[in-house]
């Protein structure tokens, strides 16, 4: 009996429904597209956050390989290459390691060209080429900067290196044939030479090899590495595993990405609410329609197919624009989520997987939202379904009989809607609270304060050897020449300029000076921990400190400052001891001591005491906090524990003649910014010197604020949209469900104009009553939250800024809805004659 169930009829009914209810379907399709867009954004952002972490871990590890095995013989390497778990392998034959002290903690292996290894470690020359002839060498730019090697292919390069076979350190001259920018290999990289060069230096390629291995299954790398070695019976071979596949790091990346994936739950909830509110507009009508076709013999199965097809078609309409807009928006947001990449992370980490997933989630959301009439009809007999009417609340009852006025009717209409307007009011309140709080938080982040602390100058130029914090500054580097400095100083846009030259100098602290420094570091802080204990994980600092404690010897960083740099070093006007006199400082008999960046701790010899620098005695005029943002790069490991002494640049040049410039600070007339930047680029082109501008800090600041506020802003915006939609829905339903009631009014002589006025009055009363709750509640909640946040935030660059901007923006939108929605829907319902409307059940 049940065999004859034609399901094609469902498609026809849906297509006709779309034709007859275009506005509703357009509204639904746009909402579905919006939902799909939100899913796509959150999934894409989650994925690229995860991939961004993986990428950074690979950079930290320095290789794309999963496992790096070291100290292998060629037969052992062949055994690993052929192991069943190994997909492919690249080998490296290092003849030694560069041992120039200017490389600091970086390890640069002198190795025979290995194209596979170079590819895996992103160590392929971008300028010039790989070595092809004897004595040719290819280097990375960081190494070249640290060793003050000019970027000139064909130039002779003298390098100090230690052979791997245990021979003593040696100095050899090579011909630079190519170099590359360091994207990977910041702490460890290779300097490539030919096999002939290796032959010439070591009498052949070394016996020991390193092998980078890519596995079929990149999971449990430690275990797999040990298994490979165990299978080959060479368990003693050392190996390291990629940080990108480390369980703990993957977990951390997963947790961070989860913030975005979790948004999907909110999107689903909000999406269901949003679509539900649209579906609900015609829910009673749909229920009656379903009852009608049920009475004609439509089976529950056919009704279910009708529902699924409706959801599928809506998803089909919405998914493609949702995917496109979601991906485009993701591409806009991506550089703020994964920072520091040249390419757009959305393109760089593009994956297809978010698209089908967002499509499925969109379909589920649409299906759930569209199931309202279906769920209502289920379990109802056709008769019950055909008679279905939504229950209206009871109007307010007045104690004594009065003449009816439009205002009283509107008041009664409002009280009938009170049950339905409550969820709308609550969702608006929640959305506005979230948005106002986050708006206030965003507005309270103080860019001026941040820039004051971070960017002392409009532009800070750093020598090529002092660009990165892992680089040790090389005083022999001359990427910022005197000519460049002079040219910059004479540019008409420059309003202030100053250079910083530094030198590490062995110094001695007398009893008084030593006692002051020791007292600070040995003393327990408010947590009961001796301050020096906080440096326990820095053995170089601890060694320097112990040396000073025992012998009084330490490394002083002497910094020659003048002009703008001197001005900025003193600009904070915080003196831990002593005071500053420009006149006395200019005599060249005084220095300013700077220890830690703390404005209260005494980590230098006391003001008034004397120090000897390069044989000349100076008096410490004052002790100030160390200005971190004035000097870039790192110093030697021995100087981890140090005291900085600022002295006039003329005195520095007398003591250390022919010394390079480490940093230059420049302020300009902002009107000439573009012109000056072009000039700056032309001056520094090819030198390796780097520039950080105040606009870079502004970008970082804005990006951080955006990053902090993005998710709550997103959630709040979606909720606000739902709230507004719900508000519009209540207004629309206030007309649609009273189709018959208005027909009765009209039949009793009420004009359409009066009905319009009645609806506008109802809307105004509804808005007014909502605002009576929304404004004070939002204002109080935002204020309380703001005070709490300000008291508990760890961010130093905040200033209390109370704002209810999202609320003020929302009110005109709500008011516009009050004006437009009831009138539009009144026009829709009054298209039918009074008699037709009065016949409606």
């Amino acid at each position, binding site marked *: 009996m049940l065999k004859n169930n034609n399901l094609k009829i469902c498609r026809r009914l849906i297509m006709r429904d779309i034709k007859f209810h275009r506005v509703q379907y357009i509204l639904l399709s746009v909402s579905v597209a919006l939902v799909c867009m939100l899913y796509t954004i959150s999934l894409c952002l989650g994925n690229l956050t995860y991939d961004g972490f993986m990428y950074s871990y690979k950079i930290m590890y320095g290789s794309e390989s999963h496992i790096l095995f070291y100290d292998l013989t060629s037969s052992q390497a062949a055994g690993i290459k052929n192991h069943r778990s190994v997909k492919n392998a690249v080998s490296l034959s290092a003849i030694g390691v560069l041992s120039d002290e200017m490389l600091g903690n970086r390890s640069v292996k002198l190795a025979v060209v290995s194209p596979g290894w170079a590819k895996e470690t992103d160590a392929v020359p971008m300028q010039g080429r790989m070595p092809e002839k004897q004595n040719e060498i290819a280097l990375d730019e960081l190494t070249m900067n640290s060793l003050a090697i000019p970027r000139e292919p064909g130039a002779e390069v003298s390098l100090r290196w230690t052979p791997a076979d245990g021979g003593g350190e040696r100095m050899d001259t090579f011909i630079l044939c190519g170099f590359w920018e360091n994207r990977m290999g910041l702490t460890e990289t290779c300097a490539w030479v030919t096999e002939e060069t290796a032959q010439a230096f070591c009498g052949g390629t070394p016996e020991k090899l390193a092998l980078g291995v890519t596995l079929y299954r990149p999971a449990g790398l430690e275990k797999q590495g040990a298994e490979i070695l165990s299978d080959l019976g060479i368990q003693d071979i050392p190996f390291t595993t990629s940080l990108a596949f480390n369980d703990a790091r993957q977990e951390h990346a997963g947790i961070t990405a989860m913030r975005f994936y979790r948004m999907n739950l909110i999107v689903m909830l909000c999406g269901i609410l949003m679509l539900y509110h649209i579906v609900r507009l015609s829910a009673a009508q749909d229920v009656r329609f379903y009852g009608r076709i049920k009475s004609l013999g439509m*089976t529950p199965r056919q009704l279910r197919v009708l529902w699924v097809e409706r959801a599928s078609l809506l998803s089909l309409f919405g998914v493609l624009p949702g995917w496109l807009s979601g991906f485009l928006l993701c591409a806009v947001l991506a550089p703020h989520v994964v920072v520091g990449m040249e390419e757009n992370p959305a393109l760089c980490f593009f994956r297809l997987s978010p698209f089908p997933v967002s499509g499925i989630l969109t379909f589920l959301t649409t299906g759930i939202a569209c199931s309202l009439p279906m769920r209502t009809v289920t379990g109802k007999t056709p008769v019950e379904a055909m008679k279905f009417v939504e229950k209206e609340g009871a109007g307010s009852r007045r104690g004594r009989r009065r003449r009816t006025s439009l205002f009283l009717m509107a008041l009664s209409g409002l009280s009938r809607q009170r049950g339905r307007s409550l969820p709308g009011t609550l969702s608006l309140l929640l959305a506005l609270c979230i948005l106002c709080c986050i708006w206030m938080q965003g507005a309270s982040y103080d860019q001026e304060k941040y820039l004051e602390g971070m960017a002392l100058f409009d532009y800070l130029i750093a020598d090529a050897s002092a660009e990165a914090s892992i680089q040790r500054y090389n005083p022999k580097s001359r990427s910022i020449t005197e000519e460049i400095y002079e040219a910059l100083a004479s540019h008409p846009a420059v309003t202030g300029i100053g250079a910083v030259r530094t030198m590490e100098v062995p110094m001695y602290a007398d009893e008084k000076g030593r006692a002051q420094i020791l007292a600070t570091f040995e003393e327990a802080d408010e947590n009961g921990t001796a301050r020096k204990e906080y440096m326990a994980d820095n053995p170089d600092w601890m060694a320097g400190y112990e040396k000073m404690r025992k012998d009084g010897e330490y490394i002083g960083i002497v910094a020659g400052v003048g002009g703008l740099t001197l001005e900025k070093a003193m600009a904070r006007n915080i003196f831990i001891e002593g005071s500053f006199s420009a006149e006395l400082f200019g005599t060249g008999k005084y220095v300013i001591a700077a220890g830690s960046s703390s404005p209260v701790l005494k980590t230098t010899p006391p003001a008034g005491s004397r120090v000897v620098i390069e044989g000349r005695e100076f008096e410490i005029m004052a002790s100030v906090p160390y200005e971190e943002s004035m000097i870039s790069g790192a110093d030697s490991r021995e100087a981890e524990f140090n005291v900085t002494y600022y002295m006039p640049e003329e005195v520095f040049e007398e003591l250390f003649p022919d010394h390079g410039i480490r940093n230059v600070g420049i302020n300009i007339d902002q009107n000439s910014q573009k012109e000056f930047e072009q000039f700056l680029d032309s001056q520094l082109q090819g030198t390796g010197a780097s520039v950080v501008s105040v606009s870079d800090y502004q970008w970082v600041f804005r990006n951080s604020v955006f990053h902090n506020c993005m998710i709550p802003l997103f959630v709040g915006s979606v909720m606000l949209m739902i709230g507004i939609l719900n508000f519009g829905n209540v207004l629309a339903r206030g007309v649609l469900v009273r189709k018959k009631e208005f027909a009765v009014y009209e039949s009793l002589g009420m004009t359409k104009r009066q009905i319009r006025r009645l609806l506008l009055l109802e809307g105004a009363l509804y808005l007014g009553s909502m605002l009576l709750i929304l404004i004070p509640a939002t204002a109080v909640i935002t204020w309380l939250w703001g005070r709490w946040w300000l008291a508990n935030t760890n961010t130093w660059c905040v200033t209390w800024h109370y704002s209810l901007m999202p609320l003020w923006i929302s009110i005109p939108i709500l008011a516009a809805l009050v004006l437009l929605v009831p009138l539009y829907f009144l026009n829709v319902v009054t298209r039918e004659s009074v008699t037709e409307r009065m016949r409606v059940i």
Partner: protein
Amino acid sequence: MDIITVHNLKKYYGDRGKEPVVKALDGVNLAIEQGRFTAITGASGSGKTTLLNMMGGLDVPTGGEVIVDGVNLSSLREEELAVFRRKKVGIIFQNYNLVPTLTVEENILFPLDLDGSAPDMRIFREITELLGLTDQMERCPDMLSGGQKQRVAIARALVTKPAVILADEPTGNLDSRNSQNVAGLLKMTTEMYHHTLVMVTHNPELAQMADRVVRMQDGRIVESPDTPC
């Protein structure tokens, strides 16, 4: 031979645990012979429409049973009941219940489309010609007059060649001229196709056209002559 048998049929509305608020049907017994035109009359609220809905499987009784063409409706599941309605019964509603998004032709063929079975085009043409609908096939219901709509509803009820046609106040929304026309058409077509017609009406003139008139009051049958009027 009886095509519809109703035994002790009850339909109560209200809280089951307490005294029922409304007894729409209170122990109705009725047998309807095949091929005959039966009119059910009575005042508003007497239970006529409820009884018709029970016969069409549109509503579930509180007690008792309805047997149509040998099928006990209370033994059918919801899915089976829908197929039963589509195959065995043609229902004509007072408010027509046409699908507004379908054309006249599609509305008439809708029960067959639900079933997936091919229409008997000879019968279809015959019925539409008889009801004067041949020129209206491509029109949508909202472009038709009340009388035309009801004729479409009659055609829809007839096209499946059902065992029983149930008409609930089919002329309730029509003027007297249209009412006579529609009732005449109904009687004529059911006689032509040998259908059993059960019509609820409170129009005495229309009831006079029936072979048998059953009168209801307060959920009970108060007059049910076995012989034709």
